[in-house]
């Protein structure tokens, strides 16, 4: 019998600490599959900042650097500048990337840093227990927005792909979701392209993945996927927001 699916080689045989139905597990698998398929396990360096996925290094059989909250793009820049032939990816949540780390992501993108950023947008702070994030939807409840996010007081959800697409330095930006097998296939395609761009020296690639946080959303995982489709996608439309992958020669 042929194997249709088995544990990716570069994922250690360990339980994920993530909650039932959490999107991190799915995204971790996709990245691991890609590392196996591209044969870059010994060159890959992951950067995991503070957030539920700070422990990603427990699971990947690759080099890792655990970064301070919000600083992964800077840490990734340091690693990439020090070791240009390593394949560096940063794995960040929405609080990390779009709140405390906004400057770092904008400037790494603007420099066209030749790194791959996986941005997990689940519209909440997971690790700290469900606080409002920069991508929390208007009206969505969070422990620090108990009456629902009110734009007059907390502003509107930040659209990262759109924001970064205005920066000349970015090469590839796509927003996907992991709500269905089909969307997972699309997410993998996008992430693989983001890694391939780095391999080809084409500069900054970021994939924003709409993901769910059942525990802090207070939903069953199967309802979480509905919430993404019905509530999040209208605010965060899926699609490619920039793709210069073909035009950019391998400069970096």
């Amino acid at each position, binding site marked *: 019998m042929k194997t249709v699916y088995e544990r990716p080689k570069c994922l250690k045989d360990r339980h994920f600490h993530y909650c039932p139905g959490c999107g991190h597990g799915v995204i971790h698998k996709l990245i691991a599959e890609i590392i196996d398929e591209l044969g870059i396990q*010994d*060159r890959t*360096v992951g*950067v995991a900042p503070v957030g539920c996925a*700070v422990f990603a*290094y427990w699971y*990947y*059989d*690759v*080099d*890792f*650097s*655990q*970064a*301070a909250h919000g*600083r992964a793009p*800077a*840490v*990734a*820049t*340091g*690693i*990439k*500048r*020090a*070791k240009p032939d*390593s394949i*560096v990816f940063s794995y960040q949540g929405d609080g990390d990337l779009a709140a405390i780390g906004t*400057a*770092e992501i*904008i*400037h790494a993108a603007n420099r066209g840093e030749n790194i791959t950023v996986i941005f997990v947008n689940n519209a909440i702070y997971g690790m700290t227990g469900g606080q409002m994030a920069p991508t929390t939807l208007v009206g969505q409840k969070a422990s620090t927005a108990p009456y629902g996010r009110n734009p007059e007081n907390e502003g509107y959800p930040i659209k990262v792909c759109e924001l970064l697409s205005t920066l000349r330095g970015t090469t590839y930006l796509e927003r996907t979701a992991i709500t269905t097998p089909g969307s997972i296939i699309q997410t993998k395609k996008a992430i693989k392209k983001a890694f391939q761009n780095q391999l080809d020296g084409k500069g900054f690639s970021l994939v924003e993945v709409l993901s769910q946080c059942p525990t802090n959303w207070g939903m069953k995982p199967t309802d979480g996927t509905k919430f993404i489709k019905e509530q999040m996608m209208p605010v965060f439309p899926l699609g490619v927001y920039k793709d210069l992958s073909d035009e950019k020669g391998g400069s970096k």
Partner: protein
Amino acid sequence: MAKEFIKGNEAIGKAAILAGLDCYFGYPITPQSELPEYLAAEMPKVGKTFLQAESEVAAINMVYGAAGTGIRVMTSSSSPGVSLKLEGISYIAGAELPCVVVNVQRGGPGLGNIAPEQGDYFQATKGGGHGNYRLIVLAPDSGQEMADFTMLAFDLAEKYRNPVMLLADGYLGQMKEAVEFKKPERKTPANDWTIGNKLGKANVITSIDIEPEKLEKHNLNLLAKYNKIKENEVRFEEFMTDDCELFVVAYGITSRVVRSAVELAREKGIKVGMLRPQTLFPFPKDIINKLSEKTKKVLVCELSTGQMVEDVQLSSAPGTDVYFYGRCGGMVPTDIELVEQIEKILEGKGEIFK
């Protein structure tokens, strides 16, 4: 090698390149900007990486990333900028990464001004960032030591896998002096712990330990390291202390003025000497204890309202009167001003530091 007439900030840059600096990440701030400017011009010539970051916070985290790969990496800033780097420095110390952080001090607190000061002694030697960590802190007093201590800083950083701070000030940064750049001989440290070197070991650079037993054990390992540093790396200079009845403790630019004051006082027959710490951590407490045992009197001079003086109090022999004289905000004492302080103390009219 012939001597070169060079600005202190640039002397750090040249020495760092000679020491094999691979990556520099910095951010503009007076009075240290000549260093990144120098490196921006010189590093590409030797095929090395210079990058101006978007903030001091980003710069120190770039240092954290690069240091994890085992290369030689440095950043520099001045007082307020160093405050922004402290979380990153704590991470670097926790993850036990070698790097060099330069602080060309300026007036504080807050925005303060761009004039020189020594108000960051506590920040440098007592942590500043969170957690039980220490920085090795070197205190140059001249263009020559700005160069020599930069090279030393890289060696110590690798020897102990610890961040090392070069604590200078606006004068030392801006002053031009004759400097001889020595040819450093580099030991190649082990890199089996590093990332990005295709070792196939899935190494992890981290400072997190969620299990209390493990984090305590890690902290005790760090403590053992710091104690070893205290044993092996204390550096100081004694100036005319053999027969002194009083000695002055001063570091960096202040020690230059104290040196003149000691010479002036000696001309007046006053037996005074100077003890100049070259390392602020590890602090030279044994020599201070020994000298104060003899003199029972010590004067501490700083460009601050009294920070190192507390360590001198802790180090002095029982019954020693510890006096303090400081200027700050960018003001600097003259040698004559200090001689008056020395005379007042020897006449029994000095004010003991409370």
